[in-house]
């Protein structure tokens, strides 16, 4: 294998693993014939090592792991909520500044946009707004798997994140602030009608499904590998 490719592949592993096995593993990779299959094997193994590190090689994570054990309610319940709130604040700031910069005459920022620059800017805000619950949920799952935490608090965190994501609604208007800058805010309700409530709950279920999907795939892969 090409030494440069071998170097890059070794870099995929976590630092404690690299410090212990990096030199000899790189030497092995350079003797391996073929490129694609061994490379795919190394990429997959590095990913597994990042998700479930070899016990005893988690030097850098001891402090973090102890937090997960001592304050699981804070790590999996409160922290993700604050993180999600922070991501939404950033998303709303992007939408609000885009509204001021690119659509000064519009009553709402949610209008069709054709300019490429404006399209990119608004979609950055929208992607952050819609993607934040899923990204935070994946973060919860990853931390829980890496630290081998019990399922209760991570599940509570995932459900809370999904409910927040499902019930959040962006309100934008210029009319409430006459000749003002316009107003963007978020509202968390399950709706004023049965249809709105069911729509919010369905949205929450979709977010929850997407956040637990990687964990389900990981468990299936693990079950398959043990049965092979």
């Amino acid at each position, binding site marked *: 294998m090409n030494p440069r490719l071998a170097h890059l592949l070794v870099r995929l592993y976590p630092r404690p*693993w690299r410090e*212990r*096995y990096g*030199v*000899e*593993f*790189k*030497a*092995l*990779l350079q*003797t*391996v014939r073929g490129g694609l*299959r*061994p490379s*795919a*094997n*190394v*990429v*997959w*193994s*590095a990913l*597994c*090592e990042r998700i479930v590190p*070899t*016990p*005893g*090689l988690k030097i850098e994570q001891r402090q973090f792991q102890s937090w997960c054990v001592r304050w699981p309610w804070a790590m999996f319940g409160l922290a993700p909520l604050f993180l999600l709130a922070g991501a939404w604040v950033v998303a709303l700031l992007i939408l609000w500044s885009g509204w001021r910069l690119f659509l000064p005459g519009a009553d709402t920022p949610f209008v069709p946009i054709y300019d490429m620059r404006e399209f990119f800017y608004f979609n950055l805000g929208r992607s952050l707004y819609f993607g934040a619950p899923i990204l935070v949920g994946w973060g919860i799952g990853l931390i829980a798997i890496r630290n081998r935490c019990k399922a209760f608090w991570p599940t509570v965190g995932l459900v809370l994140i999904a409910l927040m994501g499902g019930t959040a609604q962006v309100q934008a208007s210029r009319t409430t602030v006459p000749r003002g800058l316009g107003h963007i805010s978020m509202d968390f309700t399950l709706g004023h009608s049965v249809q709105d409530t069911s729509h919010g709950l369905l949205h929450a279920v979709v977010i929850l499904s997407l956040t637990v999907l990687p964990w389900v795939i990981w468990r299936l*892969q*693990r079950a*398959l*590998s*043990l049965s*092979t």
Partner: protein
Amino acid sequence: MRSTRNVVKTEEGAGLVHYSDPPLLVLASLANGPKHGHAMIEDIMRLCGTRLGPGTLYGAIARLEQQGWIKPLPPEERRRPYRITAEGVRVLRARLATLRQFTKAGLERLEAL
């Protein structure tokens, strides 16, 4: 244990069933003397026709070392050989005995067909 799905099978063995339990294969390979990674891959290939991928091999080595079933020896240039420990020998013996029992029972059932 580490995934056993990332095992690269040989072309000449295609279609045959390969045994793929990387930790056990590594222990079995080290049972007749210390070896470094490349030598282990070749030895396992000769032993049962299974070619372990490099990531799979080192995943197994890392876990076996942390369990104290193999020990690293001083490096030879950049390659580091490993040897099996007494505890590793005990585990290997126990697992092979279980496998022998399982194989015997399975073959007896097949003969009865």
